[in-house]
């Protein structure tokens, strides 16, 4: 009886190993298509101001984590904590923080972001477009309406119907109240 059980185990072991190998997730980094980083700065400033406060997305425990001068700061070894603290207007958002925000935005729904970039889906399929419009449940409520300058700033950047580095900053500037 024991011998029969051992034979079964021996027969099943390779199959089990094969199955385990097939289920092993790939740890290779993924690259996705995302709207141009060159044009992200004004979008990031808008998100920092309207979404990135410490009690909302400027919080390291929340999805779409945003860094910036009004909220959470990203401190590297080279940064001075006596300067790079939350709310210090003398220390504007750093290039590292800008890059982190870009990763957060692009990585929120990467597959859908690729579909939007490829024209297979509209920007309204993205949760980060729907939530501020309150077209999807959002704890922070309605942040802006569809068609407003803030909404256009974000959507135009996502749709990326422009050459990299050449996005019209008009809507973003209007939303931020700058000339």
């Amino acid at each position: 009886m024991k011998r029969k059980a051992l034979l079964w185990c021996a027969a099943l072991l390779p199959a089990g190993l094969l199955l385990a190998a097939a289920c092993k997730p790939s740890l290779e980094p993924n690259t996705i298509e995302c709207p141009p980083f060159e044009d992200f700065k004004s979008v990031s400033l808008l998100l920092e101001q309207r979404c990135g406060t410490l009690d909302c997305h400027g919080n390291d425990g929340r999805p779409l984590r945003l860094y910036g001068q009004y909220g959470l700061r990203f401190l590297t070894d080279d940064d001075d904590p006596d300067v790079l603290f939350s709310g210090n207007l003398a220390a504007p958002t750093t290039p590292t923080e800008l890059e982190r925000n870009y990763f957060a935005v692009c990585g929120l729904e990467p597959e859908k972001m690729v579909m939007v970039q490829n024209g297979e889906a509209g920007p309204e399929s993205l949760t980060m477009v729907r939530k501020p419009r309150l077209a999807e449940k959002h704890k922070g409520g309605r942040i802006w309406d569809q068609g407003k300058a803030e909404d256009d700033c974000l959507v135009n950047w996502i749709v990326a119907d422009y050459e990299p580095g050449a996005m019209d900053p008009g809507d973003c500037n209007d939303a931020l109240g700058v000339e």
Partner: protein
Amino acid sequence: MKHACSAIALVIVSLSGCGNPVTDDAIEAWGGELPDVAPSEHHRPGQPCVLCHSVAGGASPRIVLGGTIFADQQSFLPVEGAEVVIYDSVGDSYTMKSNCIGNFYLETGDRDPQFPLAAEIRCPTYSAAGEKLEPQKVVSMNSYISRDGSCATCHSLSGTGVQSTGWLFCNAPEEATSNPYPPIAEGCAGKPPQTEGGGDGDGNGNGDGNGNGMGAAGQ
């Protein structure tokens, strides 16, 4: 007897399942009341009020927004009589006044402010001789309050940092002598913070606060 036991067990299970473990842990981390300060509008200055005074926290009264105003970012000397004005997203405004320990709050009511909110503090002013003056000094927040009514969630007693703009204050360092705030009123039922950034307070809130830069209301 068997039914009675089952009913009691059911009640115990139901009650134990009502808490929010995240909120409960956060409340517990703040510790108990000071022995000589009863729970009242004078207790726990500088702590996140809405953590307890909310549906999840369970304390009464329920409040929408609350915090504490201190004189500057070097000490925990509270400011009495400061007006905190918030402007909500539907155009309404609400005014609160800080008490002798610097605490202010807005109870939930028929007409609660709608987030996001903008806020400003109208600080009382004094002459160098300590006489109260007529004009107020207005300090405004640079960012919105998006969803958390506890000012101390972001304006932490631990001072400025990557997740804190420091506690709320009225005076920049150079204004300490030109606009001196009086010590805590005699008979005030509250005590200033004794821990974290406050270090060893001397009873008037003059601790060795850890404030190391621009903070809170000064922005």
